[in-house]
């Protein structure tokens, strides 16, 4: 193993130890208080007018909805998961929080692995989604899927998760074929003070987190956080037998936001993590990683603004007989300007450098070449034209990207937005998006037991192409009621397949692009507050896939198998209700239609299921909140959500109970 590994591993270990020390010191301080006095202010409604403006500024208020109004006027299918919704859901990980969005399929395959997709094609290696955390792309360039176990932050620091279904290739770039998940954390000046939590339960065995934030001079703020989670294992389908995928993970991070003048803002953030999971009862997998992101926003004039961003990201994986190191360096520039009264222009350029080190792979898998360095460049231009200001907008734009695998790819789109009156928004879009082949598609091979080739690396794969047609409507009949519906029709070509045949008496496979087909669907979300203190949200997703293979294809994966792996219907209802005595009760009911899988052991069916999550919380005042989460209440005996992550036919998700105490000041 390289010397680099030893040094960075010990560095991460050291920092983790320091953080656990700070955390324990802090917790002991909280529970060993020294005397002081408290001030409780009770003010009647009309007396607000008598309050001094200085006191007024310290008054905490309730906000009916923190939905960004801008998103109502977006011509794409956007759903925003708010920080409150995340808190109420009890999600302790980003993938669990994604269950709140319509149009996504989120299935837990193992304790630390999820299959997540938008608008079909779900798989452990689902590869048509672009996932960003504060502008940093986190899908792995190795196979374009997401290692969800590596993606984490303090859940309380997440400001919102914007989920865009459908192509976002023009603005966001490669891999944004079926959707973009944009995780946005709070600015440092929104997290000043102290936050800490501690908790545990049966599956969420134990966890703790700490954040501290403050001012750095007059114009800057910072925060630091650390967290630790220890989680149990899922069980083998229909049994009580653990599949030994227990894991624990620790993370440390910081963020600095600075606004030295009204025309310049700077942001710098970074984090490091360590993750350890059992693989079998006697072997482990270790992951280390870290990233640093910098951003400079500059306002040239009221009509012109630029953004410059860089990031560096490194992830390392080590198990008994293999390792993997991936480094990404990314630089991105964007310029928004209003030209005349009617044009809202955006253009930008970016470059990305990726280094892969797969020298130490576990047989029979190999990469040819074992090490590789890729450079990608892109430019984009988009214009939002106010055809009739305030009434009708037309957007047209394209991204051109140069990648080392297929060369130049074009991702154009055109969109409209029609706002007849205050209460209705109609939009539509036609876009073309591409999913370029990855290193795993092009360079990965496998030996068979005789030392011959089972999977032959194929060097001339093409990009998958999608042309998507979407129509959407948002209605806000009143302050208390809103609807959002979208229909789509997706036309795919050159989808990836694994073609297998017999060569010289043994089976040989290669990757190719021999599938095509269409999907169509309907997604709806509604928000209703029947009375003050009670909010209901409902979502519904319908998806139908129709895939076909080219004549002569010998794909090992039949098209109808893929069609059945995605539930045709999903529905969700969330209720948030404030109770007397500063209590809150949240309830979520989720239903998924059945799915089935063709495994080498035969067909494996998962019945449709209903999942009920509850949370009861008590706000003890002044920042102290105690919450009891009972997730999957009805699921006493366990059931699968998807086929298993490893070679087991399936894993079972079981009822999960945990308690969390948090304090914020």
């Amino acid at each position, binding site marked *: 193993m390289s010397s680099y590994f030893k040094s960075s591993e010990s560095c991460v270990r050291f920092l983790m130890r320091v953080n656990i020390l700070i955390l324990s010191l802090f917790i002991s*301080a909280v529970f060993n208080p020294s*005397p002081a006095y408290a001030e409780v202010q009770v003010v009647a409604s009309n007396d607000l007018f008598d309050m001094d403006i200085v006191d*007024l500024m310290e008054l905490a208020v*309730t906000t009916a909805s923190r939905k960004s109004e801008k998103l109502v006027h977006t011509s794409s299918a956007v759903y925003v998961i708010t920080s409150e919704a995340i808190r109420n859901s009890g999600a302790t990980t980003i993938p669990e929080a994604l269950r709140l969005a319509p149009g996504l399929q989120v299935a837990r395959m193992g304790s630390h692995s999820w299959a997540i997709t938008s608008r079909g094609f779900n798989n452990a290696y689902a590869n048509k989604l672009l996932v960003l955390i504060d502008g940093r792309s986190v899908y792995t360039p190795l196979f374009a899927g997401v290692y969800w176990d590596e993606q984490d932050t303090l859940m309380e620091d997440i400001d919102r998760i914007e989920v865009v279904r459908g192509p976002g290739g023009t603005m966001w770039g490669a891999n944004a074929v079926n959707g973009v998940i944009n995780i946005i954390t709070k600015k440092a000046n929104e997290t000043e003070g*102290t936050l800490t939590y501690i908790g545990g339960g049966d599956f969420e065995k134990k966890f703790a987190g700490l954040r501290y934030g403050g001012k750095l001079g007059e114009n800057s703020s910072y925060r630091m956080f650390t967290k630790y989670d220890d989680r149990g294992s899922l069980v083998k389908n229909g049994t009580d037998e653990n599949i030994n995928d227990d894991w624990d993970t620790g993370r440390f991070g910081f963020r600095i936001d600075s606004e030295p003048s009204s025309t310049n803002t700077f942001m710098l953030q970074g984090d490091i993590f360590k993750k350890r999971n059992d693989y079998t009862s006697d072997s482990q997998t270790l992951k280390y990683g870290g990233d640093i992101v910098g951003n400079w926003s500059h306002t040239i004039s009221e009509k012109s603004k630029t953004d410059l961003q860089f990031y560096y990201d490194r992830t390392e994986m080590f198990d008994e007989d293999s390792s993997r190191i991936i480094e990404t360096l990314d630089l991105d520039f964007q310029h928004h300007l209003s030209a005349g009264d009617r044009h809202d222009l955006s253009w930008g350029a970016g470059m990305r450098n990726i280094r892969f080190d797969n020298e130490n792979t576990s047989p029979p898998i190999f990469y040819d070449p074992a090490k590789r360095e890729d450079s990608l460049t892109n430019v984009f231009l988009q214009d939002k034209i106010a055809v009739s200001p305030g009434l009708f907008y037309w957007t047209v734009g394209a991204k051109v990207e140069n990648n080392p695998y297929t060369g130049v790819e074009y991702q154009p789109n055109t969109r409209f937005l029609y706002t007849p009156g205050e209460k209705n928004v109609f939009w539509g879009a036609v876009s073309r998006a591409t999913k370029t082949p990855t290193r795993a598609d092009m360079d990965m091979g496998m030996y068979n037991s005789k030392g011959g080739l089972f999977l032959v690396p194929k060097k001339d794969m093409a990009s998958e192409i999608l042309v998507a047609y979407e129509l959407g409507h948002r209605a806000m009949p009143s302050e208390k009621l809103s609807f959002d519906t979208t229909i789509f029709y997706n036309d795919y070509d050159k989808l990836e397949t694994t073609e297998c045949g017999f060569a010289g008496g043994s089976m040989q496979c290669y990757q190719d692009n021999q599938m095509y087909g269409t999907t169509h669907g309907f997604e709806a979300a509604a928000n209703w507050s029947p009375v003050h203190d009670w909010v209901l949200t409902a979502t519904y997703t319908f998806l139908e896939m129709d895939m076909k293979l080219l004549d002569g294809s010998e794909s090992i994966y039949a098209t109808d198998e893929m069609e059945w792996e995605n539930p045709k219907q999903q529905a969700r209802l969330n209720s948030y209700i404030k109770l007397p005595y500063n209590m809150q009760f949240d309830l979520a009911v989720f239903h998924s239609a059945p799915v089935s899988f063709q495994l080498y052991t035969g067909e494996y069916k998962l019945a449709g299921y209903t999942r009920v999550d509850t949370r009861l919380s008590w706000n003890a005042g002044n920042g102290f909140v105690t919450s009891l989460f009972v997730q999957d209440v009805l699921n006493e005996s366990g059931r699968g959500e998807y086929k298993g992550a490893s070679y087991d036919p399936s894993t079972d998700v079981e009822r999960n109970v945990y308690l969390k105490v948090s304090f914020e000041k």
Partner: protein
Amino acid sequence: MKRKNGEIHVIAAVISLLLCSSAFSSEKVFTEYQVKSVFIYNFAKFVDWPEQAFSSEASPVNVCVLGEDPFGNEMDLLTKKSARGRGFDVLRFSKFKDKEELKSCHLLFISKSEESRIGSIIESLSGFGVLTISDVEGFMDSGGIIEFTMRENKVRFAVNLKASEQAGIRISAKLLKLAEAVKK
């Protein structure tokens, strides 16, 4: 009441005390727009309009709400109040039709429903002594004078001093000091 330094012991003591006391005290919670309406009342106390903005010594301060009214009845409480010898009148305009009718406003709150038209509203009012206020993100950058923001459930505001000077409105130093940001 945010602690800037790690006064952990004090904080902890406050929590343990409040943990016992708060279970019995029913603290009144105010809505965002309830508080914002009182902010607008306070702004009137710290602002000097150009002389010609009022027809007489006794004429009231006109508070206008443009677009979908998020305040409900809260704003009407203002009519029972006075600031610096003047009473308040509350006027509501569902849509931006005629800039002339808005010029009688001293304080103009522009609702989020008007977001797409903000540029043209501000442009048509420039130089007429109207203190424009909104919680639309980027309002100040579009030439608005006071922009509300929410920080951790608390109401904050920023002031565009250049725009207020163009409107001939003088904002007191005390208010500027409380502003989260002042754009010069």
